[in-house]
């Protein structure tokens, strides 16, 4: 059984880590649309893939994953936006958990936008 003691052990481990993390201006912000349109189109597994993928890749110190509401392009959900200082916002559309893995590998880690999945590549 997951015990509350286990939670306290996690707390002790994290106390140092939280202190270390600080803004250096190079953070990457991954924003997943989680309104009715996003949820119905499958945004929950996409969000989960980003949260777990970023942690697994050891990027959690510099990358945050957050949720937002409807941004008005419901037909392209699940929509994911990537914000980084001094760079143009990148909007990925019709995302899946598998595509999320690829975006973490190539874009978040490697710095190369996966242009096949961006809104520019989607047929309008």
């Amino acid at each position: 059984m997951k015990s509350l003691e286990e939670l306290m052990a996690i707390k002790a481990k994290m106390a140092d880590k939280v202190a270390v993390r600080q803004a250096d201006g190079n953070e990457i912000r991954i924003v997943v649309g989680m309104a009715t349109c996003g949820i119905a189109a499958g945004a929950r597994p996409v969000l989960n893939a980003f949260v777990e993928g970023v942690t697994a890749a050891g990027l959690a110190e510099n990358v945050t994953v957050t949720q937002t509401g409807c941004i008005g392009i419901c037909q392209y959900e699940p929509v994911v936006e990537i914000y980084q200082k001094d760079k143009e916002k990148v909007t990925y559309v019709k995302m899946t958990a598998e595509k999320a893995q690829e975006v973490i590998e190539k874009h978040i880690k490697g710095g190369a936008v996966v242009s096949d999945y961006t809104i520019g590549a989607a047929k309008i």
Partner: protein
Amino acid sequence: MDEFSLYVLDITMNSVRAGADTILISLMEEGDWLTFSVTDNGCGMSKEQVEKLSNPFFTTRKTRKVGLGVPFLTMLAEMTGGGVKITSVPEKNEDGSENPDHGTVIRGTFGRNHIDFIPLGDMVETVKTLIQGAPNVNFSYVHTFPGGNVELHCAELRAMLGEEISLAEPEILSWIGGYLQEQYEGEA
């Protein structure tokens, strides 16, 4: 939406957006019925707003002109022989004074054995997603079913962890997922 847990996620998001800091999510399965309710202390709605909620062409957001969350839930409830009821107390009384008891309760009943009902789906994932998106909200989650119940109270976790550590930290979320999962497996 093909899992009930996605409806729970969608409806609870309304409470988060209403600025609630305390939200109770309750699921109770008993006999032929599932009763689902979300109780929040958010900004609440006027009587007129509550009446308009069942109309898909009513929404307060600006990015699109339709709001389908409550209509979806109502449709599923009515298809399975149940219904949805919303009661709400707005922040401001009609005379403009503040009402400290503001908030909204949405309660739906669903025929859980009805052929049109859908699988509950991954409730653990829904709770984790809510906490990830709103780590400062005190969610309480209580799911009662024949033979057992599963509970999580964010306020208790926060009391243990202190204010410094966000519940949205991956390590904490992963612990929460395991904690709920083990309760479900233990009760099954």
